[in-house]
């Protein structure tokens, strides 16, 4: 298990991605799954950085776990910001044409579609959002 706690800001996304990629590479994660996880990190950390503590800043803890037997990688994003369950958000209408499309709501949807599992819990004043991907 690996764990990092830092101020949730957009400019830490690349750094966090590098840390997780290092862990994934040591587990011989296929490139495709790795890039899908990278996109998920981008979406989820950007959400926390933009909304969890707005207009202030706050910390996020990111925890990386790996289960050898099932080859399941789990990454949890834990913040103490406003309660927010992204799984309750309705999926965007992906059948609309360009002019009718709105610029938002796609990120969480993309993560839902590319990860094997996505879980949310609100516990002791914390949002705990976990993604799981078999690698």
């Amino acid at each position: 298990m690996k764990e990092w706690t830092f101020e949730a800001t957009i400019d830490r996304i690349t750094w966090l991605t590098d840390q997780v990629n290092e862990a994934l590479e040591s587990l011989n994660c296929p490139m495709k799954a790795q890039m899908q996880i990278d996109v998920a990190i981008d979406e989820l950390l950007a959400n926390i950085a933009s909304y969890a503590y707005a207009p202030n800043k706050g910390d996020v803890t990111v925890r990386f776990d790996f289960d050898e037997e099932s080859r399941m990688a789990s990454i949890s994003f834990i913040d103490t910001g406003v309660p927010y369950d992204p799984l309750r958000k309705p999926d965007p209408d992906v059948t609309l044409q360009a002019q009718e499309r709105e610029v938002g709501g796609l990120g969480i949807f993309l993560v839902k579609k590319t990860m094997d599992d996505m879980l949310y819990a609100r516990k002791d004043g914390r949002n705990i959002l976990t993604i799981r991907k078999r690698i």
Partner: protein
Amino acid sequence: MTINKQQNGSTLTIAVQGRLDTTTAPDLEKEIKSSLEGVTELIMDFEKLDYISSAGLRVLLSAQKQMSKQGSMKVTNVSDLVMEVFEVTGFTDILTIE
């Protein structure tokens, strides 16, 4: 992310290399917005694009909306991984992908 632009008459080709994500998408957006005057054909070359997140999709969507008014836009050399993102999000119906 690296952006390479090549203008040929009213055709502009923008080649994007690396990751198109929350961190880099604003740069591409600025680059596109400042280059579209008089352009009737915009070609986005994604041969060297590693991956795209929703921030990148938003930039593509606004470029597509703009180009629908003044000409056309197409996306070329899309990798399997990026194509899957386009498929899942319905962008295959919005964009012209070659």
